[in-house]
């Protein structure tokens, strides 16, 4: 154990030990530890193997900014070990190795790098031979692709979503964010302050001399009632209108803010040299975090790469932690830091001017080379500066600039409702950063209508030395990594440019730089410099790649949320369940598929037979139901549907066919003219939302004297069908005349049945005598019960969706969406009878005329099959001359006819009744079917019109 005594380890609770396993071995830590800090405290620095070359990787930033620390915890892969809180009993495993983490057999790939240059996969997997990909490469890559193991049996638990609103959202609880939050909340604004860390303070949490100042500010923040503090919360993107997802554990809070202050600080950058990825090499910030947050001594013998003055704070920290400083490498002069340098020299530290050329070690850092000097060490702390955390600002529209002279990136935010504060805005000194937070708060407050005076910033003396852009020339032997996630070296990027990819976005796509979990945090800026140099341009000209949401990795569970099931029930749901229905989802609706238990085919055949020979009832409440009313209602329907409705007599029901502007059939139903100015229109279950939206849109555009109401849930519908349907209705008290003469086919009547107000229509989908009764949904139970009582002497039975599908197929009726596709025209369906020839206009008319001029290439026909022949499935191709000419849209066994029947699109020349067509069955076998007329059953419609 390398635990340091207090005051080191401010985040851990030493009174609460935690036990866990990593790679099967038991480890101990404390509550407050992360997985990585607890492992580091036990000397386990290697956490993973790299993506491509399987190189050992470990802690680098302690900020979750790179893929080095990704581990699997139980069934959840790809958790950042340096950010994931330790829990008792955790079972942690490493990822991406074969054999063991320490002895990864795939590490051989590190020696085969020359055969895997950048972009090699674009060429390699094309051969040899045409089938090489599927036969050889795809299985090989599939077996190796991805990090971690997905557990298909894992049950997602605890994921949730919520919404937050505030006047000011401050992202980042460091010195700038904290001061901004206090300032805004004190002024009375409703403020949310979020930070991905478990405590506020940012870098102040590991600068001991700032401790008192930090405690005071945190206390103030917690006292402010209008300030909500959300630690452990990642802001993973900025979207329009200041909509930002805040991910806190397994909950995504969708936050809408009046003003956003981004105070996300800087991202400490790596140095690029051969071997820069070895465990034991980490940023200065990581060193400080390990020591001050977790009480972990990061090494026994350290070298510090001191590109910025922050390196001297790291040196102080290491000295306090008892780490021997073997050397401080100064890659450049640091004016103004002479006294600190002298102090270190006096303390016995060797100061070496130069740069680190190579780091070496097997599994962990053993030595670094500065020119000819070899310095033994087990820790290299890299302090070469920060780049502003540009992702959120750039998503919000900020421009990223670069100063070639100082090597500093800067952000320029132009939005009035997003402010940048602190290090992300280019400030360096602590007092300047704090003041800048207050300045940003003042700007936000003024935008919200509060009074807030201007704030003057103190001089930012440390700014000039805040970043140290080291040379990025490639090492002759490579392994100088720019992107740890993707194992990309300097030469890879230079080679990408040589391949002709001069633009940064193309380099990214060719090389995959910045496409790993870190999303370019450590690689994007170095890549920009390399590409700029390789193309003879300035970084300001190349820019950086687009930073899209999400800022960091997020789990699919968080995106999916609570997994609520959308469910709609008809008013008769309980009756169906009581009758033994098997309820199935149809869109969001739950509908009876069939009733009873036993052999399904037998049950469905019985339901079909009941309708054909007696009487059945189907709950059609899920049908779309619209009321179109107003003086122009008929004219309005004339424009929307293909048939004529303006002249439709009151009391008549007429088929409706709706086309889109391409003359493709998108819906059908019926329109019952209840009054001169009132139509009751049905639409299909699946299309009602679209139909209603279209009607509302056209009504707004055409400005006719019409109102459209969607009554889908307000009304329930029952289809009573079969030769005995009339007898059932006539046995009920009603003011409607249900006799043959009193209620003819395609008529509609309103009145009461068994005391229930109904809208009755003589229509049918089954081909039998049918009455469709619609009533206000609160009366549906009463109507159902009355019908079932009255129908008992006639053996009335409910039937389900599958029987309905068979009944309509026997009659040759189409289902929109099943027997049509996105291009189906009325002519292809043989629905020319449903298209008015006299109307000047209806939606799709012009396109229909143009399509008619082109001719009909396919037609929907009925098909029959020889007895005993193999039956095709729905979607099986209909072939003509060996090429696809159509497909089967519906197929079922007809209990009435005792044979299998189908609907299919066939080539127009094959549509004649009796024509043979060839279908490729799912077995691959080609079978022959015979074209039949549309209606397999009662083609003369004698049954439905009795």
């Amino acid at each position, binding site marked *: 154990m390398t635990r340091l005594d207090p005051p080191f380890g401010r985040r851990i609770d030493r009174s609460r030990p935690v036990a866990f396993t990593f790679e099967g071995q038991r480890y101990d830590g404390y509550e407050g530890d992360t997985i990585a800090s607890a492992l580091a405290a036990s000397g386990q620095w290697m956490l993973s193997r790299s993506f491509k070359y399987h190189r050992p990787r470990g802690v680098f930033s302690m900020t979750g900014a790179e893929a080095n620390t990704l581990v699997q915890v139980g069934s959840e892969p790809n958790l950042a070990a340096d950010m994931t809180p330790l829990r008792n009993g955790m079972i942690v495993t490493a990822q991406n190795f074969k054999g063991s983490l320490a002895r990864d057999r795939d590490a051989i790939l590190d020696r085969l790098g020359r055969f895997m240059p950048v972009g090699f996969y674009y060429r390699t997997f094309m051969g040899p031979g045409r089938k090489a990909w599927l036969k050889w490469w795809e299985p090989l890559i599939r077996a190796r692709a991805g990090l971690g193991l997905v557990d298909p049996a894992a049950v997602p638990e605890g994921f949730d979503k*919520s*919404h937050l609103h505030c006047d000011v959202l401050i992202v980042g609880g460091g010195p700038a964010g904290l001061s901004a939050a206090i300032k805004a909340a004190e002024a009375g604004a409703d403020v949310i302050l979020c930070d991905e860390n478990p405590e506020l303070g940012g870098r102040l949490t590991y600068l001991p001399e700032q401790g008192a100042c930090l405690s005071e500010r945190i206390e103030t923040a917690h006292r402010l009632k209008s300030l909500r503090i959300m630690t452990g919360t990642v802001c993973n993107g900025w979207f329009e209108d200041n909509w930002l997802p805040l991910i806190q554990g397994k909950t995504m809070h969708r936050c809408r803010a009046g003003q956003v202050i981004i105070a996300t600080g800087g991202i400490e950058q790596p140095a690029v040299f051969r071997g820069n990825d070895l465990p034991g090499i980490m940023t200065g910030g990581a060193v400080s975090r390990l020591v001050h947050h977790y009480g972990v001594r990061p090494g026994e013998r350290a070298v510090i790469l001191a590109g910025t003055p922050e390196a001297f704070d790291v040196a102080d920290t290491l000295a306090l932690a008892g780490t021997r400083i073997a050397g401080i490498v100064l890659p450049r002069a640091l004016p103004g830091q002479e006294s600190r340098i002298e102090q270190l020299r006096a303390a016995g530290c060797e100061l070496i001017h130069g740069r680190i050329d190579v780091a070496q070690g097997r599994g962990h850092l053993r030595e670094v080379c500065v020119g000819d000097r070899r310095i033994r060490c087990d820790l290299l702390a890299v302090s070469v500066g920060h780049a502003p955390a540009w992702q959120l600002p750039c998503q919000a529209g900020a421009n990223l600039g670069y100063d070639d002279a100082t090597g500093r990136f800067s952000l320029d935010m132009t939005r009035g409702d997003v402010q940048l504060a602190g290090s992300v805005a280019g400030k360096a000194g602590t007092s300047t950063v704090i003041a800048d937070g207050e300045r940003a708060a003042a700007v936000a407050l003024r935008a919200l209508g509060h009074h807030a005076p201007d704030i003057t910033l103190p001089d930012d003396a440390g700014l000039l030395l805040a970043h140290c852009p080291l040379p990025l020339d490639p090492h002759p032997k490579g392994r100088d990594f720019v992107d740890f996630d993707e194992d990309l070296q300097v030469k890879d990027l230079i080679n990408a440019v040589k391949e002709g990819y001069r633009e940064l976005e193309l380099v990214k796509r060719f090389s995959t730089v910045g496409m790993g979990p870190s999303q370019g945090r450590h690689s994007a800026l170095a890549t920009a410099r390399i590409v700029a140099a390789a193309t003879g341009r300035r970084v300001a000209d190349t820019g950086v790649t687009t930073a899209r949401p999400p800022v960091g990795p997020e789990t699919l569970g968080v995106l999916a949320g609570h997994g609520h*099931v*959308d469910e709609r029930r008809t008013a008769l749901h309980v009756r169906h369940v009581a009758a033994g229905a098997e309820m199935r989802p149809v869109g969001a609706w739950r509908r009876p598929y069939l009733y009873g238990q036993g052999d399904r085919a037998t049950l469905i055949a019985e339901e079909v037979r009941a309708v054909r020979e007696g009487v059945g009832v189907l709950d059609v409440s899920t049908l779309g139901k619209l009321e179109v009313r107003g003086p122009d209602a008929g004219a309005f329907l004339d424009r929307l549907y293909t048939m004529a409705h303006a002249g439709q007599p009151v009391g008549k029901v007429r088929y409706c066919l709706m086309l889109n502007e391409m003359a493709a059939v998108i819906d059908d139903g019926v329109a019952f003219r209840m009054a001169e100015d009132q139509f009751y229109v049905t639409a299909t279950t699946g299309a009602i939302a679209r139909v209603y939206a279209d009607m509302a849109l056209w009504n707004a555009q055409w400005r006719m004297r019409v109102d459209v109401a969607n009554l889908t849930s307000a009304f329930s519908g029952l289809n009573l069908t079969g030769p005995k349907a009339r007898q059932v209705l006539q046995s009920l008290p009603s003011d409607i005349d249900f006799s043959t003469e009193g209620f003819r086919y395609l008529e509609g009547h309103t009145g009461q049945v068994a005391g229930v107000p109904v809208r009755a229509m003589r229509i049918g989908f089954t081909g039998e005598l049918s009455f469709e009764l619609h009533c206000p949904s*609160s009366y549906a*139970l009463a109507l159902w019960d009355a019908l079932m009582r009255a129908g008992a002497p006639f053996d009335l039975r409910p039937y389900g969706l599958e029987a309905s599908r068979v009944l309509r197929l026997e009659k040759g009726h189409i289902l929109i969406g099943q027997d049509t596709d996105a291009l189906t025209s009325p002519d292809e369906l043989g629905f020319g009878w449903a298209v008015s020839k006299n109307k000047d206009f209806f939606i799709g008319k012009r396109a229909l005329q143009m399509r008619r001029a082109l001719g009909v290439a396919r037609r929907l026909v009925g098909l029959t099959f020889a007895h005993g022949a193999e039956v095709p499935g729905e979607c099986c191709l209909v072939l003509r001359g060996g090429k696809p000419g159509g497909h089967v849209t519906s197929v079922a066994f007809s209990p009435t006819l005792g044979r299998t029947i189908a609907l299919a699109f066939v080539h127009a020349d094959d549509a004649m009744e009796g024509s043979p067509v060839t279908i490729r069955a799912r077995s691959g076998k080609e079978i022959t079917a015979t074209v039949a007329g549309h209606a397999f059953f009662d083609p003369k419609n004698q049954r439905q019109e009795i």
Partner: protein
Amino acid sequence: MSPAFPFQTGGAAAEFATLLGDHAGLCITDRTAWPRFGLKGPGSTGWLEGAGISLPGLNRVAAQADLLVLRLGDNDITVLGSSETLNGISSLRVRWEAAAGPKGYSSWREEAWAWLHLDGPELDQTLARCCAVDLRLGRFAADQIAQTRFAHVDAVVLRRDGGADILFDIAASSAVIKIIRESGGHP
């Protein structure tokens, strides 16, 4: 014959009636059976004003003699009653049915909507989980109407007397009450 609504015996969501009531800081009351009367389309506003109903502005609600008048659109108004104002709504409907046009058309809100009233200390958290609109008191005015999505369905939301009224697709009653209970005040 009395109408039957989803949370009543035999109703489509009857099995979830146990989720109604006061559980763990959230009280859900079913008001689906409470009277209401909605008109929509040309002539609606004129007839209602002629009937003595003062109409609020768009997306606003106004209290008037134990009734709440919701202005959902230029020509889309719903009047909400309570268990004590059944007669008031009924008489309004009778007058409308007897009137000559133009008088608008029924929007059938009494059949199309379920109506739940939520109240209790867990209310704000529940609303935040179910709805993207900032419905907190002080942020959402007492005379404001949110026509929005609530628990994944289209809904009309009001804040009254510290509580919230949710009017939504009656066919989604079972799903909505489950989601509300999962979001706050778990029994």
